């Protein structure tokens, strides 16, 4: 048994090195179904240098509301270096935003509304508590460069208007 375990560690270590080689990486990733082979980058080589913003608006029988930005995960607090529960929601929104950005190419844009990240954002926006019953909702994803103080965020995605059903 010890020999088997040592062989597993040796192969695992080898795969962890080979995944860094572009020639072997796709092959290893195809078989790494459980995420055993890590690829530690820590923001390398080119980090994200901006923020995504998720906004939504609703339509009512009387008209349409203004866009409202969702502050997912809430603001950062001084104690977040020890205890940071909001990090998960913020990271989840970031992950979904990055994934949806990959569907913005002309050959994929027509199917964007059936992708998981689109559905995740639509699901979240649709389930938000509302003071008044809205008829339809729409979300938009915007991106702002962090170091451009006066810059206007650019629009990445604008969803269709989706019917809201009372549950």
């Amino acid at each position, binding site marked *: *048994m*010890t020999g*088997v*375990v*040592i062989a*597993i*560690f040796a192969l*695992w*270590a080898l795969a*962890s*090195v080979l995944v*860094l080689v572009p020639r072997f990486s796709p092959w290893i990733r195809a078989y790494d179904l*459980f*995420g*055993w082979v*890590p*690829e*530690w*980058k*820590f*923001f*390398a*080589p*080119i*980090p*994200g*240098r*901006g*923020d995504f913003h998720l906004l939504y608006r609703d339509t009512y029988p009387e008209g349409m509301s203004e866009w409202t930005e969702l502050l*997912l995960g809430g603001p*950062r607090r001084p104690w*977040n*270096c*020890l*205890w*940071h*529960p*909001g*990090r*998960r*929601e*913020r*990271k*989840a*929104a*970031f*992950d*979904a935003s990055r994934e949806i950005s990959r569907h913005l190419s002309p050959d994929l844009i027509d199917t964007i509304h059936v992708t*998981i990240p689109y*559905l*995740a954002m639509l*699901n*979240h926006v*649709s*389930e*938000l508590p509302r003071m008044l019953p809205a008829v339809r909702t729409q979300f938009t994803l915007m991106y702002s*460069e*962090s*170091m451009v103080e006066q810059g206007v965020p650019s629009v990445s995605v604008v969803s269709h208007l989706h019917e809201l059903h009372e549950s």
Partner: protein
Amino acid sequence: MSPEIALGWCTRLAAFTIVLCSLEYLWGWRTLRDGGMISWRVGRLRLPVTAGGWTGNLFDLALAYPNILVFYTIRAGLAGMLAFGPAAWGAAWPLTLLLYLGGLLIEFRCRYGHDGADQMSSIMMLVITLAHVAGTDLAIKAALGFLAFQVMLSYATAGWAKAPMAGWRDGTYIAAILSTRIYGTPAVGKFLTERPRLAKLATWTVLTWECTFPVVLIAPPQIAYGYLGLGILFHVSNAVLMGLNSFVWAFIATYPAVVWWVLNRGF
């Protein structure tokens, strides 16, 4: 330090990371609801096996809301037993295997919201399980060597991937990351943006440390411990400035393996 004690400390620290992350998920329970950003209702659609049918119903038992809250409570409890319980519990491989499998289920539930700290804890639980399944001194030493190798590889990979990029070398990227809302402290980002030489110095300090980290495997103990001390400083800084609190515990959990290597490498 004996291999058992070194692996025991790795286990306690990795388990503590899982306790912390599980309690954070429970505290932020709203995001796990069907309407949350980490929703099973949407996450299950990624795979046919989880999307529906009897297999989907089976996954519902652990992953649907509010069952997921019970799942995280049990996970925190099991990890707490390893983190704070008697040393013998750390060698109980069914416990570490359960924590590893639980981590896999969390990945299946929704791909969003996870990070490198989760991946490191998950890898550690599997490595510790394998070592204790074999149950020999040699397997435990191999596990420690593997963990020391992984942490060395993680820092070196990150450093050498950044080094060719002009934006890292001139300090622009570090100021830009720290200016974001998600990973930054905008006041510090602005401070560094206005002081490009300081941003460059901070980047080169991190880059040099990351790129040369593999020397811990061959350097004299004082230098090796210095590198590990800088590692703690690096992760604590990231926790304070970037909010990456769980990385502190997840990565420092591998350090007992490096210390064991330094003490026992025979040169």
